[in-house]
């Protein structure tokens, strides 16, 4: 069965610090990979996605993620966080041979101190 693991449950950073959130998945087949974000009081929204091609993908608000197939990882990065990045971040995987369902990690709560 597929699973997704996010290593950090709660991360606290000061503004301008660099961010890296870990995400590992277990599945031997071809996958699509996603990061979703939920800002306080808002809907879950897509931050970035990887389907194929360049393993380094760029998303909204300066976020990027790198797919490393050999490590089954899809870590999220941002060089300099802002207070407005305070949110919960979810990594998700879709196995291409299993329809469109997403398997989510447990989420990482990011708190950015002004």
């Amino acid at each position, binding site marked *: 069965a597929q699973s*997704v693991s*996010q290593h950090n449950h709660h991360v606290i950073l000061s503004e301008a610090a660099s961010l890296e959130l870990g995400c590992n998945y277990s599945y031997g087949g071809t996958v*699509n990979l996603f990061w*979703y974000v939920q800002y306080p009081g808002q*809907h*879950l*929204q*897509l931050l970035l*996605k990887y*389907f194929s091609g360049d393993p380094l993908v760029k998303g909204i608000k300066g976020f990027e993620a790198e797919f490393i197939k050999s490590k089954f990882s899809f870590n999220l990065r941002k060089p300099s966080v802002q207070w407005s990045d305070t949110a919960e971040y*979810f990594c*998700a995987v*879709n196995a*291409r041979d*299993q*329809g*469109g*369902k*997403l*398997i*989510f*990690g*447990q*989420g990482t709560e990011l708190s950015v101190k002004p």
Partner: protein
Amino acid sequence: GAGVSQSPSNKVTEKGKDVELRCDPISGHTALYWYRQRLGQGLEFLIYFQGNSAPDKSGLPSDRFSAERTGESVSTLTIQRTQQEDSAVYLCASSFKTGVTDTQYFGPGTRLTVL
């Protein structure tokens, strides 16, 4: 255009009662998904629809859970004889189709509390 909408936004019920949760997908989206998020956990897949058929019901936790969809429109998730462990936020998402490149757009969720 309008996003995915869900109703009610909050539902408090007593153990043993039945509840119905509604999802209105984005117009034109043929695929619709239901997920559940328990407190402190990630989202769990429940079921998805392509049109009004459900190719994958593998995430439904028990036979107390059922869902239906009318055409390529509204979907209803029904939980019969609710239990306290059913308390969670139930999220609906829709996408243009179930192709591998389709982004799922999420609704605001229904927070269900079973007393």
